[in-house]
């Protein structure tokens, strides 16, 4: 079967082309998941809609209130080179930059990472911790959704047919805020997260005043762990608070036993990573 390839210049055209292809259409961002899946015969789209030619999807903007709008099809390298983004959201950028290798970084996008629907996608827990929302557009117009609401299960999304993720919206930052992301992989690179942990927090004179925790690869979807955040907020990130937050992370895990890690292992490591990630975020935010 022949594959149709279209590369529209506007979002409206993309939405129309995607809708016209109905069930056989696929969005192509960096293609680092899609092309691999096509080669392995997992998907065989009839129409491929390339969204990398659309300005809104490939640009990063700092909004007036100090937030950021990141196009869904911005590559990891472009994220990394943005002069301000890494200063305000070092955790989001480091998570996106962990994806693949230098070559993969030139292609892979946060939109693709989210929409691939893998619970192990690296940028997703960091986005969840960052309280990012996504702007979605489809045949029925635009809407916004919290990042953690997008995945439904492995490979499945809460998007309506024909909807495209347009951008990620990062909220303005209070003073003394920062974030971090750590993942556990058996190798040093070119591997898939066995557990991923994103922490975003605000420190005020050594006390944590706000926090969010995202956990990857420990459940069918990336988790927002509110109990862990609660344990951190109001504390000085002392050993007791960290232990409580770690325990909350372990308790939130609903992992599987598979070739990549055992249930016991993932559950324990989720807690270990929480402690380490929170301390890095706090350090970046100005220290405990």
């Amino acid at each position, binding site marked *: 079967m022949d594959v149709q390839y279209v590369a529209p210049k506007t979002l409206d055209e993309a939405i129309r082309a995607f809708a016209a292809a109905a069930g056989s259409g696929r969005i192509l961002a960096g293609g680092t998941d899609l092309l691999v899946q096509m080669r392995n015969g997992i998907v065989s789209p009839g129409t491929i809609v390339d969204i990398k030619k659309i300005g809104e999807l490939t640009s990063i903007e700092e909004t007036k209130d100090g937030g950021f709008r990141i196009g869904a099809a911005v590559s990891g390298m472009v994220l990394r080179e943005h002069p301000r983004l890494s200063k305000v959201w070092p955790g989001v950028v480091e998570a996106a930059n962990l994806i693949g290798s230098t070559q993969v970084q030139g292609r892979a996008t946060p939109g693709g990472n989210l929409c691939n629907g893998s619970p192990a996608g690296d940028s997703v827990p960091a986005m969840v911790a960052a309280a990012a929302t996504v702007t979605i557009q489809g045949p029925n117009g635009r809407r916004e959704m919290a990042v953690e609401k997008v995945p439904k299960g492995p490979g499945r999304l809460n998007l309506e047919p024909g909807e495209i993720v347009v951008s990620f919206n990062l909220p303005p930052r209070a003073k003394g805020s920062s974030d971090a992301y750590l993942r*556990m992989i*058996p*190798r*040093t*690179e*070119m*591997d*898939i997260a*066995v557990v991923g942990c994103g922490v975003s927090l605000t420190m005020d004179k050594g006390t944590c005043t706000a926090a969010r925790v995202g956990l990857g690869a420990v459940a069918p979807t990336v988790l927002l762990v509110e109990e862990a955040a609660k344990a951190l907020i109001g504390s000085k990130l002392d050993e007791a608070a960290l232990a409580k937050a770690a325990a909350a992370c372990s308790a939130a895990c609903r992992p599987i036993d*598979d*070739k*990549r*890690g*055992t249930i*016991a*292992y993932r559950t*324990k*490591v989720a807690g*270990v990573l929480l402690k380490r990630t929170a301390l890095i975020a706090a350090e970046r935010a100005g220290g405990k």
Partner: protein
Amino acid sequence: MSTTGSTKTPETANDNKWIGKRTIRPDGADKVTGRAAYAADTTMPGMIWGKVLRSPHPHARIKSIDTSKAEAYPGVKAVMTAKDIVNFPIDKSVMLGIQDMRWMCRNVMAREKALFAGHPVAAVAATTEKIAAEACKLIEVEYEVLPFVIDVEEAMKPDAPILHDFIKYKDKPSNIAGTLEHKLGDVGEGFAKADVVIERSFRTQPVHQGYIEPHACLVSVSDGKATIWSSSQGQFMVRAMCAYLTGLPQNDIRAIPAEIGGGFGGKTIIYLEPLALILAKKSGRPVKMTMTRGEVFHASGPTSGSYSTVKLGATKDGKLVAAQGTFCLQAGALPGSPIRGAAGCAFAPYDIPNVHSFGYDVVSNRSKVAAYRAPGAPIGAYGVECVMDEMAEALKMDPLEFRLKNAAKQGTKAAHGPVYPRIGFVETIEEAKKHAHYTTPLPKAKNGKLYGRGVASGFWFNAGGESSAQVNVNEDGTVVVITGHPDIGGSRASTANITAEILGIDYKKVSVLIGDTSVIGFSNLTGGSRVTYASAMVVTQSTEKVITQLRERAAKIWKIDPDAVVWENGEARPAGDNAGKFEPLSLGQIAAQASATGGPIGAGQQLNTTGAEGGFATHVCDVEVDPDLGIVRVLRYTAFQDVGRAIHPSYVEGQIQGGAAQGIGWALSEEYIYNKDGKLDNPSFLDYRMPVSSDLPMLDSVILEIPNPKHPQGVRGVGEVPLVPPLAAISNAVYNALGRRFYSLPMSPPKILATMDMAAD
């Protein structure tokens, strides 16, 4: 440069001009620019594509195969099944090297039964790969699904599902397909004399050779004669096996070796070639076949997983008095696991008066194992060297000192047979002991990380065997050498070094080519660490014959007796009474007059080489362990090896580093994982975790040159023994860091944490 520490580098150890020099490898530029032609790069006009239909079941009787729908599918040119392959009856063994054609004919295509998930059942050739794949799905195979067994210990149990009713052990149907025993002295008496006895059991998982290039071939048959381009470790093996399996005589098969993208033993056997040959014959078209990475994992040989028990006895003063080992190795679906390497090499580094080493060859429903770098030896050494470490600790001795005290030397009788000639094992330990790596203290525990150091030694047999070479002097005075060995580790460069050295000419004037089966005499596999060893012997003798011819030609030109001519520094010089009477003649000058003085100049030699004495190595490894995540990283690694003579030090180091890297993967992260349905669950490089370069530190090698007295240049095989010590060296280092011993590989993060948590409870 990667070497550190060695004061006596091969470059400075002799006054050779080329031998021991780091010449530029002749195949290098083509490889880095992508111009080198691998088997999958080959195409032909009219070429079609072959694909294999594989069994989805780990164990099933094949009741019927209906290929009619596939045959009728548009674009399909030929379909084949086991019916098209020569059958070798079970009751008569037909050996080709280490492979038995009874098993080969059943491995390349399932005959009575499918014996593992991925076992070929049929193959199709069609105008495109896609059509061939679609047609495979139209083949109807009726299976009677049978109970299966994957694990070696399970397969040895009395009630295990039996793979082959013709295999009997102690008169009962069994999965134990063979045993091997080495005995020296009396272990009962030996253990009775021991003050300390330690016995432990060990498990390892099957690991794949992990060559980057998947199996590939192109076969053309015309006028009943077949030409095969393929990636293998031996074109003569390809020819012989295809002749056996297709019934063609060897003179009607020409096997052309393509550049090879790694083999590590895994390409000493064939999978696709006979299928492509039969499809080409049936269709009248050239047929190309390539495996996907998934097919490589599912159906080409890994090496065995194992279950072993090792028992050592020593006296208080640190002398080993008895050793016993039982090594149970998975053969995969058909007999032939490397028990010889496991049981034979395990105790070979040590002088122990009483040894009993026993190997079991066990079949189970996995792909048939293939050779992997020192086949079996790493498994044997893993158990022995871990118990050596524990014994040294029990005796309160330094682990290297303990090894030194028991090291085999010239005159030691090994349990597997030989009395050693001059060997360099002791030197590897002594060098390790005084090396900066071993004398530098480990880092102190910090940031929750723990540090440990481990050592281990190892032995590999090495091999001689058949090789052929032809050395031709060209009209312009340059030289072409043809050998019969695919070059995996830089052997063309080594061969050129030797030829240039003996002739006394510039390295650049020598080209080394690998001949196909129709242009060079029989040459056995590139395997067993034999190529540089054996090539050097036939190339040396060929070159010496050429020199004789060159002296004769000079004598003819000068009209003096050939005995009055010497060959020195790349030229013929008059000697004795004639010294100084004539201007010397260079190789180029003699070559230019070759026609007038008797015709072309060139000579060949063919030998069944012997005298490849064993190789010994000692490795030192430092690890850093993150005990909360269970991650082990190798921080520093130094390998000490007696190589006899390093003809080309860079490629010797490359072999040592490669072996150590593979050993690190085997110890820490690589394993075949099967799901509950008996299918391989991790058939990709994502989940079959070989180390990537950032996982490894620079792997240092210290080359020791204790010449092999039986070789013209003193060469010993170098390619395999580097994979023997790492498993135990790393295990011992992890113990040193954590204070917990691990008896099972890989020491993956979940396993480390589970063991640590058990300890904490």
